[in-house]
């Protein structure tokens, strides 16, 4: 596709359930990033992939969060045993080569944990 695609666009889940968020980056982009934006906050970095490997996982808030990327393309972000503080917009971005090139964002997944 022409841009970064994320699904679902909205997800409402009960506290304690697991959720999986998907990101399809721009074709040919080697770097993929996950950020999240909580209400009234800026973009908080979660994890970064270069190809299929994740050199920087420093932003993952807890061990309930994990992400993988397969085939150098699609990535999934999994949140286990969701908590209300996980409610946020989860944004995926890709870039052509990582450092020094701009990120192109998807429209995000709005996660609401009730």
């Amino acid at each position, binding site marked *: 596709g022409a841009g970064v695609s994320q699904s679902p666009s909205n997800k409402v889940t009960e506290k304690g359930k697991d959720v999986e968020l998907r990101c399809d980056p721009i074709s040919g982009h080697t770097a993929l*990033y996950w950020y999240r934006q909580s209400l009234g906050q*800026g973009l908080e*970095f979660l994890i970064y992939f270069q190809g299929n490997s994740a050199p920087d996982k420093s932003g993952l808030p807890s061990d309930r969060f994990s992400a993988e990327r397969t085939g150098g393309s699609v990535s999934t972000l999994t949140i286990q045993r969701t908590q209300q503080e996980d409610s946020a917009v989860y944004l995926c971005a890709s870039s052509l080569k990582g*450092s*020094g090139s701009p990120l192109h964002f998807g*429209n995000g997944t709005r996660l609401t944990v009730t």
Partner: protein
Amino acid sequence: DQQVKQNSPSLSVQEGRISILNCDYTNSMFDYFLWYKKYPAEGPTFLISISSIKDKNEDGRFTVFLNKSAKHLSLHIVPSQPGDSAVYFCAVGNSGNTPLVFGKGTRLSVIA
């Protein structure tokens, strides 16, 4: 402690006038600076960038200024148009493999 600060949460400007959005950063190792624009329910879109070897970069109505000694960058939009109303995020990074760090954003309202 915030590495990137956008101290004005909101800004209101009349159509046709100049909009100036400001951003301060703390780490002198940053050498790549960007502005993003975000409409509601959409992801941020890349607007303009500047590297540390320059102090100004212009693209149409948008100009980014970088003052390395003050660790300050600004985005000028002139003339401002109602369609420019959005949240603007400043982002900083470096040429190593580190992710961009974003500010909290400034909501710009351009009034017709």
